[in-house]
């Protein structure tokens, strides 16, 4: 009789225990690895902004997130760099520039590694995503949209006397090619002429900039990895020659002294948008379900540069600028 009683008693105790303790436990802290692949020398603030954004979202570097990033690499080494990250079995790749994004996209084929890009000027046109709203595949990110027409208009507002604009670009890089298309259309509308030079290497870019045509009234920098490498030297020369300049992003104005810019602040976009997208992916959302986001854009003027080249800008125009470097 005593033996018959015991099993029943134990089962009842076990049920009671389960009911009392089955109210859930703390989720296990997971650690993640994000690889960064970049081909731009001027995007370190973007990476920094991204990391800040991730920290704000609860991913503390060294605690629950690790970054693999050895700095930007030249275009020919992008594929290898991306493949290295795949081999390292990262959870996600942050790709900076269109070329880097293409390399990351190629390297992650057949894997479940997601890619978040910033910036890709024309994600659809360059074949990175099917559409902004439905990216498809394993990739999404932040695009600055093509504000290149508006940027030309802004340059002309700031320096209305410009008639001919000098543009050096790498025809093999999709970013400047796409941007140039918009710039050309806008130039037609606004009645200015473009003088273009195609280059393949930074050395060629240097030569092209050392031989700025006499008739050029301004220099327009496209988002171009090869050309960006000669940005600082070229700006020095342009300033000496008294030529107005337009840069592809805020940083060129704020940091490098380009006269005007009309575009995105990538550091902010990386912090606010790219980091949020990355976080959602790490938490299990499929990249295909995350529409590509458009970054906020701003108009900027570097007043110091304007003064150096002897350009007088009316107050009405200055008031239209979102960012003024005085």
């Amino acid at each position, binding site marked *: 009789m005593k033996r018959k009683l015991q099993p029943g008693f134990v089962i009842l105790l076990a049920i009671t225990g389960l009911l009392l303790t089955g109210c859930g436990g703390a989720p296990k802290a997971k650690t993640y690895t994000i690889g960064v692949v970049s081909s731009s020398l001027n995007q370190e603030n973007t990476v920094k902004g991204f990391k800040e954004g991730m920290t704000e979202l609860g991913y503390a570097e060294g605690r629950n997130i690790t970054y693999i990033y050895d700095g930007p690499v030249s275009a020919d080494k992008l594929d290898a760099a991306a493949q290295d990250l795949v081999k390292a079995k990262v959870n996600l790749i942050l790709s900076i520039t269109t070329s880097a994004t293409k390399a990351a996209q190629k390297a992650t084929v057949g894997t479940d590694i997601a890619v978040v890009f910033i910036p890709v000027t024309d994600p659809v046109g360059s074949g990175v995503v099917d559409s902004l*709203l439905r990216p498809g595949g394993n990739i999404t990110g932040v695009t600055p949209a093509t504000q290149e027409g508006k940027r030309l208009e802004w340059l002309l507002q700031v320096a209305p006397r410009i008639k001919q604009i000098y543009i050096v670009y790498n025809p093999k890089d999709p970013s400047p090619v796409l941007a140039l298309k918009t710039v050309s259309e806008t130039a037609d509308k606004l009645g200015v002429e473009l003088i273009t030079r195609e280059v393949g290497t930074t050395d060629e870019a240097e030569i092209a900039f050392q031989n700025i045509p006499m008739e050029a009234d301004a220099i327009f920098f496209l988002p171009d990895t090869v050309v960006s490498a000669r940005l600082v030297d070229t700006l020095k020369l342009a300033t000496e020659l008294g030529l107005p300049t337009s840069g592809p992003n805020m940083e060129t104005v704020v940091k490098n002294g380009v006269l005007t810019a009309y575009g995105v602040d990538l550091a902010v976009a990386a912090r606010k948008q790219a980091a949020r997208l990355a976080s959602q992916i790490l938490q299990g959302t499929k990249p295909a379900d995350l529409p590509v986001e458009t970054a906020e854009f701003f108009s900027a003027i570097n007043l110091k540069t304007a003064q150096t080249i002897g350009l007088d800008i009316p107050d009405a125009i200055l008031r239209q600028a979102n960012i003024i470097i005085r």
Partner: protein
Amino acid sequence: MRGSIRKRLTLFSIGLAIGPLLLVGIILAWQSFTTQEQQALNLQHEVARRISTEVKAFLDGLESELRIVGQMQGLQKLDRGRQRDTLAELLSYQDAFESLTLLDGRGQEQVHVARSSVLPIELGNRAKADEFVIPQTSGQTYYSPVHFNETTGEPFITIAVPLVDVRTGLVDGVLVSEVRLQRIWGSIMDLQTGRGQSVYIVDAQNKVVAHRNPSVVLRGTTFHVPDQDGIHPGLTGSSVVLAVDKIRLGGQELNIIAEQTVAESLALAVNTILITMSLMVGALVISVVLGLVIVRQIVQPIQAMATTAEAISAGDFSRQVQVTSRDEVGVLAAAFNSMTAQLRQSLEDLEQEVVEVRQAEESLRRANETLQALIDYSPLAIIMLDLDSHVLLWNNAAEKMYGWTAQEALGQFPPFFTEDKREEQRMIFERVAKGEVFTNLELERRRKDDSRILIGASIAPLRDSTGNVYAQVSMATDITEQKKAEQALRESEEKLRQIASSLREVIWLRDAKTRHVLYVNSAFEELTGRTCESFYEDPDIVVNAIHPDDKERVIKALDQRLEGIPYNQEHRFIHLNGSVRWVASRSFPVRNEDGEVFRWTTIMEDITARKLAQEEVKRLNAELEQRVIERTAQLEAANKELEAFSYSVSHDLRAPLRHIDGFLELLRETTTTTLDKKSQRYMTVISDSAKRMGLLIDDLLSFSRMGRTEMSKSQVDLNELIHDVIQEFMPEAEGRDFDWQIATLPLVTGDRAMLRMVLVNLISNALKFTRSRKITQIEIGYEKENETEVVISIRDNGVGFDMKYADKLFGVFQRLHRQADFEGTGIGLANVRRIVNRHGGRTWAEGEVDRGATFYFSLPTSNQNRR
């Protein structure tokens, strides 16, 4: 019956505990749940209202900015450039505006500034568009439905404010703005939300236009706003507590929705229910346990007694009722157990007795069986008689031995007694009846076929429990054959004894263990001079008489025979009269059936006469040998002397010969002109003879030397040697045609220089005597005659010789041809023979005149050649 009391008692106790608890739990849980739900709903209401206030304020603010710019600045009165700059400034100041368009009183676009697009070249007319018509006609602000950018998915709303001329008070234009609803996402993002809480805005078309996660908006998520607040499926499909607050903008409506998952918002209620349930389960467990314990205390003793009674009735007396309580049930159980124990003890005693009786019966049965088997299968005839001599028992062996069956014999007087032994038998019967026991009796008996047999028997009395003899038993075996065999053996031994005593050799037999002499024949007395009796008495008498010089050897051999080495010795033996006799003694073992030695037989033969004869032969041989040695020494001395003599003669002859030749040469020089031709010819003959004599002496010397030179032996390759010799002769034989056939020759042991001389002589002869042949054929052969020697042959096709001179060929200075035909001194073959002889070999030759000759020599193999 079983369980019925228990089941009823158990159910009753559980019901009593659980019923009230269940009732209280349900009421408490329900109340907690409804309260929590209401509180959660209120919270979501509050959140939704806060956001709607913010959104409303934001849009009102935009409207105000548009009105201020339009109205305060008198926008319509400014020139195009100023209008454009003003709008551009507003655009850069307020980033919620995507674009601003100024329309005149007819709906014509005056100025257009946009954030992300370049100025259009041609401005359009919007006279029929709502954003113009509604403000123009009503003087009210116009809000459009939310619309989305097709590419980016971003939501926009159009706000148009009328511009009124201050003088006329009429609407003279409209300021149209495209507003980015994205700017209100920030308000939602900044909102501190609880776990599982979400706030979003849905337009009239059910599209989500604002959410803290922009992706939700951009991908065009839709949500059907429920008519009432409460628990509904939320945006993600899971159950939520949801509250809606609506904003009206002109004719448009936006739904501000705040929701929180049920799990989060009603967590407290759920916890309350869980705790209540846990308490109930706990109470259930406790009540069941307590109930069962009580039931057990009441029911178990009764049940145990019932079970035990059932078991006992089924025959299990070992069962006891396990009740320890001191109540009435306990007393009953103790009495029950005592009764059962007594019953069990009685049963066990009975069983024990039965077992013992059975064991005794079994022992008896086995003893009987054993006895019967012994009687039935015994080789002894077992017979039992009563005191009146009637047969009581007659076993199988008795049937076989006497021929009467048991049936014939039982109850009868034993039929096997012979008439003549009846008295003897009667006496034995009487003595046995008095208790005497007879063993090893040898008695004669009659068989059924009337033949007689001899039996060996033992007879003993049988007594009853009082000690009185009531019968006798006899055990007998037929010993007739055994007795016959003993007789035969005795006779055989006697015969052998007679043979042995007639032999001249001494034969004796000893016991292997005791060494006692079992038998010795009479020849012993003659050989040793001692009596046979003395040998029987002292077995060591023979050993002691062995000659002291041989004793040790013989004793050693005697010991070794024990190890299996046959004993066969010849030794001296001292006769009792002191004379020494030579004897040959042999000893061999006699083995029993197991192969063990149990006797030694020794034969000793007198061999004194043979020994003496052998001694004589040995002495004569020694004498002969001594004589041969002496004679050989004399011969060797004579030979040496002769050799020395011939050497000195030859040597001494050379000096005068040189004088003759020398002085003859001087004479010839001085007389060349004075002497005539004839005299000169004589002088030449003398000179030639002297030279030839010199050669003869040289050869003689070399021959002599050959006999005396020390031999230096080594391994000699005849093959190599013969080629060497032929090579030497080739210059001399130049111009001749040869057909050499040379076999492969062996390695021999010998003096290389001497063997070379043998080959030089033989090949030089062959070349010499074939000089007349057109083609010289020389064949050098080799064959191994036997194990001890090899034979080398040199055959040529030269002039040959007559076989009757074959013996002379190897003699000194023996020549078969004229000096004019074939030069030579006749010493070469003599040298060959001497060298070969010194090597221990032989030489011989075969030939036929003009048909060639063959010379043979043999050499012993390896080290067999002598000096």
